[in-house]
């Protein structure tokens, strides 16, 4: 395909993003991983022979990121050897005080990087026009993609036109978006009438094919367990009437959500197995939900096991909202401690309180059990 052109489509780098569940150490490593993924995009560009790279919004987490984040982003961009077109999104809108107009950016941005600041078509390479609809405010009043193509005539013959836009599609948002969404039908019409040959979208972190020529690239590195296909960059090849889109995985982290039913020793072993089977533990965050009830010794065992896994993984978070594992002490537990007199009576009182629905009694009971076991 001599007339074809290949470029890379990425979005939602959100450099400078923070995740509280990772803790300080995990946060630092994950932030670096997001830059590493950008650098790997450069490798993919080289490998695929991409002529340029487009990033459809939310390059930065917000306009007030610290200087270090901007400078490191510039360094990462230097690792991409082809032109790079960046589109301001809702996170880094081209609003007053935007980082795109700041001296920190303009003073350090590599020369092969272009920021889309208006809707004029840009010939990024001969025969390829890139038009963008940059966000000028975090609260647009209408379809954020429309300004990019509304007044365009069909592309001249031999010219391939790519629209860069950012926002949720009306069809995918489920009516939950609190900002105006992108009119998918209008986009498809523009594609069908030859005004656009490819629409690169950003904002959705999972790689999503909307139509053959309309894609969300997804984020280069996972940001939440809910994301289905994160960590990709799309290699798009446009030919005369043809298109080929191929995802390349550049992310290194995993974010996993797991729900466990814990009622006996076997279920705890199953949870241990789950942890054991997860790869790249140091780059994996696990959000753990659990319910059930356990005898006091098993509860202590569970606590110890989860604490230990927290040291191995990047982070293991007990999902407080869905963590309902309760102690279920039975008479045998208490007998095993060989307590008598007031100690036995106290423990029995706590046990009954727990049985009566007093949640705080559970923690007290567990503690007393542990202390009695250690003291014994």
């Amino acid at each position, binding site marked *: 395909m001599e007339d074809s052109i290949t470029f890379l489509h990425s979005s939602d780098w959100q450099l*400078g993003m*923070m995740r*509280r569940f990772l*803790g*300080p150490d995990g*946060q630092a490593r994950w932030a670096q991983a997001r830059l590493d993924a950008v650098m790997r995009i450069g490798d993919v560009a080289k490998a695929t022979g991409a002529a340029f790279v487009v990033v459809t919004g939310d390059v930065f*987490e*917000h*306009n*007030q*990121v*610290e*200087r*270090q*984040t901007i400078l490191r982003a510039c360094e990462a961009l230097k690792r991409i050897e082809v032109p790079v077109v960046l589109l301001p999104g809702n996170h880094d809108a081209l*609003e*007053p*005080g*935007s*980082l795109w*107009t*700041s*001296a*920190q950016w303009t003073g350090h941005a590599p020369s092969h990087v272009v920021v889309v600041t208006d809707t004029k078509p840009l010939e990024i390479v001969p025969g390829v026009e890139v038009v963008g609809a940059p966000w000028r*405010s*975090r609260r647009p009043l209408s379809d954020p993609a429309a300004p990019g193509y509304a007044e365009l005539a069909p592309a001249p013959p031999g010219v391939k036109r790519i629209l860069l836009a950012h926002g949720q599609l009306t069809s995918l948002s489920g009516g939950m978006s609190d900002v105006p969404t992108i009119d998918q039908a209008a986009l498809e019409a523009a594609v069908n009438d030859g005004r656009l040959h490819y629409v690169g979208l950003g904002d959705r972190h999972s790689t999503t094919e909307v139509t053959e020529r309309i894609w969300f690239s997804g984020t280069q590195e996972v940001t939440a367990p809910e994301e289905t296909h994160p960590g990709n960059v799309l290699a798009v090849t446009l030919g005369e009437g043809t298109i080929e889109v191929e995802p390349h995985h550049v992310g290194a982290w995993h974010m996993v959500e797991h729900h466990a039913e814990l009622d006996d020793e076997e279920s705890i072993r199953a949870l241990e197995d789950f942890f054991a089977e997860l790869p790249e533990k140091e780059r994996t965050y696990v959000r753990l939900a659990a319910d059930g009830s356990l005898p006091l010794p098993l509860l202590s065992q569970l606590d110890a096991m989860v604490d230990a896994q927290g040291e191995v993984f990047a982070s293991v978070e007990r999902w407080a909202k869905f963590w309902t594992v309760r102690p279920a002490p039975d008479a045998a537990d208490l007998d095993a401690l*060989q*307590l*008598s*007199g*007031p*100690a036995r*009576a*106290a423990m029995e*009182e*706590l046990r009954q309180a727990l049985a009566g629905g007093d949640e*705080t*009694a559970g*923690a*007290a009971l*567990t*503690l*007393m059990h542990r*202390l*009695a076991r*250690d*003291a*014994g």
Partner: protein
Amino acid sequence: MRLHSLTLRNFRGVKDRTVELPAIGTTVVVGDNEVGKSSLVEAFALIFDYPDDSKSKRIIDIQPVGQDVAPEVTAQLTLGGRELTYTKRWLKNKATELTILEPDGRRQSWTGREAHNEAERLFNEHVDPVLWQTLMVSQGQSLVLPTPADAEPLITAVTAESGTPVDGASMPLVLAVEHEYLRYWTKGGRPTGDFAKSAKAVEAAELTAAQALKAMDEVVADIRRAERLALDLDELSSRLTDHLKTVEELRERKQATDEILLRRDSVRARAETARARLENHTRTRVERERLLAEVEKLTQTDAELAERRKDAETVAKKAAETVHAAEAALAEVIELRDERRGDLHVAERLVARLTDRAELDRLLVQQTELVDVRARIASAGLVLDGVKVDEALVAALEDARARVVEARAALAAGVPEVSVRRVGAEAVRLSGTGLDAGSAKVPDELEGEIQVLVSGELVIDVPGQIEVKVQAGGEAATLRSRLDEAVRLEQDLLKRGRVKDLAAARELLRKVDTVSAELQEARRTERSLTANGDPSERITLLCARLGVSSTGEEEEETKSAGKRQAPVEDVPGQMSLFSQFEEEEGTFDFEDLPALEGGELGAAERSLENARAELAVAERLLSDAEFAAAQARKAAEEDRSEAQQARARSELAEERLAAAVEALDAARAVLADENVDAEEEKATAEVEAVLEELTAVQAQADEVGADEAAGLLADALAVATRLQGERDVLRDSLRTTEGRLEQSGRDGLGTRRELAELELAAIRAEHEGLKRRADAARRVFDTLGRHRAEAQTKYSEPLQTRIESLGRSVYGPSFKVWLDDDLAVAERELDGKRLRVEALSTGAQEQLAIITRLAISHLVSTGDNSVPVIFDDALGWSDKGRLRDMGALLGRAGDHGQVIILTCMPERYEYVPRATFIKLES
């Protein structure tokens, strides 16, 4: 364990003593200090603790000082149902012997070390050391409250009785729970350690996050502001551009109309000039008319005022003459009044002098009487001063006389009376001592006959013939002495009264009464004469007023002082009257002062009344003359003032007329009267012409709208200026906001906020974890503590009940105690007042300690491991009332076991019922 007997030999100060103790009941062992009461307790301890070969200092110390003897102890006791006889001797001939009589009657014996070991084994097996130490109270320890928690027999007893076993096995858990609790909470329940630190860290992180959030909110607000400003700026710039086009159009229109407006302005200026000139001429005409009228009016006024002035001056002159005549009449009346006043003065002085003279005569008579009375007082005083006799002296003299008569009668009865009569011619001489011939004197040579009482010796000598001696015997001397004493006493009294005998004294006393009555009367008279003061002072005053001197007074005073023996006519106040005094009328001698004639004073007073009447007439005349003169003066003053005013008004009118004439002349010099109207008419014509021209130009300007064009341009320019100003303000605001935003971008405020929130979330999570653990620790601590407290209460109940039961027999039904974890009494309540035991009095503490021990003894008495209660000297702090109750208690305690009391003060225990008293002799 029961102790039956103890035998001590060569033990400290005890040579050999056996004390038998009843197996049950209360025994009081009485002995003075140093007789070895405490040695009994010590011996019992040593026999079980030290083998016979011990070289312990305690063993060496029990050997009597300076005696090389072997201390020896034998104890008989029941231990675990066996009866033991245990003997031990130390230091010399060391020996240990143990004999045991088993309950089944078997008897076993040991000697030496085996005996010691067996005895020790049995003791340890059946005597709990804590209980033994608890119930054996050494000297000086009676105040210490027992802490018997570790006494095994007690634990067994309370456990059996309460049904609650002691929970010693849980102690490690209790300590672990407490340790865990103290990791998070202070004993007072406040957060501590990492928990407290994390709470503070959360607060700090919240503050930091809030600050970061606030900074970001400001950034967002700035972004919104900048967006608004940019929109506003665009809109304003657009409006400004449109408006500047309008300004340009207006400016072109105005240039076209400016020429007409210039011409109109020129005509307007000329019209103003012409109008000013006309006004000037009109003013000149009006002023001229006013000046002419004024001169005419002032001339007429001046003539009228000159006439009035002349009339007024004539009236004033006449009034002045009237005043002069009135003042001359007034001077005459004043002279008459002064003359009458002089007459009155002369009459008043004459009346006063005659009044004084009359009073002086009266006082001189009064003074003469006073002199006489005072002479009588002085004379009576002299008489009374010389008399030494009073009623007491006369009574004493009467007694003395009676004693003399009595003594003399006794003498006559008790001594020989010798009657001697000379019958021959020969001289008969009488001599001797103690002779008494009555009132007659015993002559040396007898002439006739004489009776003589002989109380001494009488010698009758007829020279050459015979000498007879009569010698008195018996009590003659004593009788004689009594008579002499009575006579001497009488003589002393007569001498004191300066009288010859009793009759003289009585006479003199009667005279004194008479003189005293006279003296009283004279003093009453003197008081009445001097009731209004001494007349001499008033006389002196009157003399001075009348001009009469009394220079002889001082001389008379001197004489009276030197003549107290003859107070006759020399009386104070007696004076020589000098007769000279000066008056205005002249000088005259007092001697020449005529005696007052009857009616002279009355005539003088009538003259005085006449003089006063004449003076009153003169003063009325004077008052009338003064009124007339004042009236004349007032009228003259008014007339004179009127004349002056008329003159002033006339002069003022002349001045004003002259000024008006001068002004009129000056105006005429500028413009003659006949030209004034012509000039005004000329100026009026000129104004009308210019106004006509101005109307024509204005019509032309109105036609092309010249005035509106200028206004519209000015308004448009003002609007343009305002819009430009607004645009500049917006632009500046936008630049400022953008500058702030750029700075916030440089500062990385968003990252800071996220970092702060990240930090806060981490710290909160840590704190939540700590809080869960802390709450759990507290829950466990509280729950366990509550159960332990309940168990403790139940566990200690048997002992508490015993103590309260015993204590109520001493203190009454309100007595309560609370025990702590060691089963020691911690607090006591009496009559509703609860106190820590440390706060109790010494006596109460000692009583409580004894009661507690008896309660423990009672509680363990049913078991095999009971021990005797031994008090070595107690109840030293209790008053007598408590001693009675405590004694009763100690007596009852003997019903349940063996109570042994060692004391040197048996009276403390005299109320112990059924006690066995054992006296240790020294």
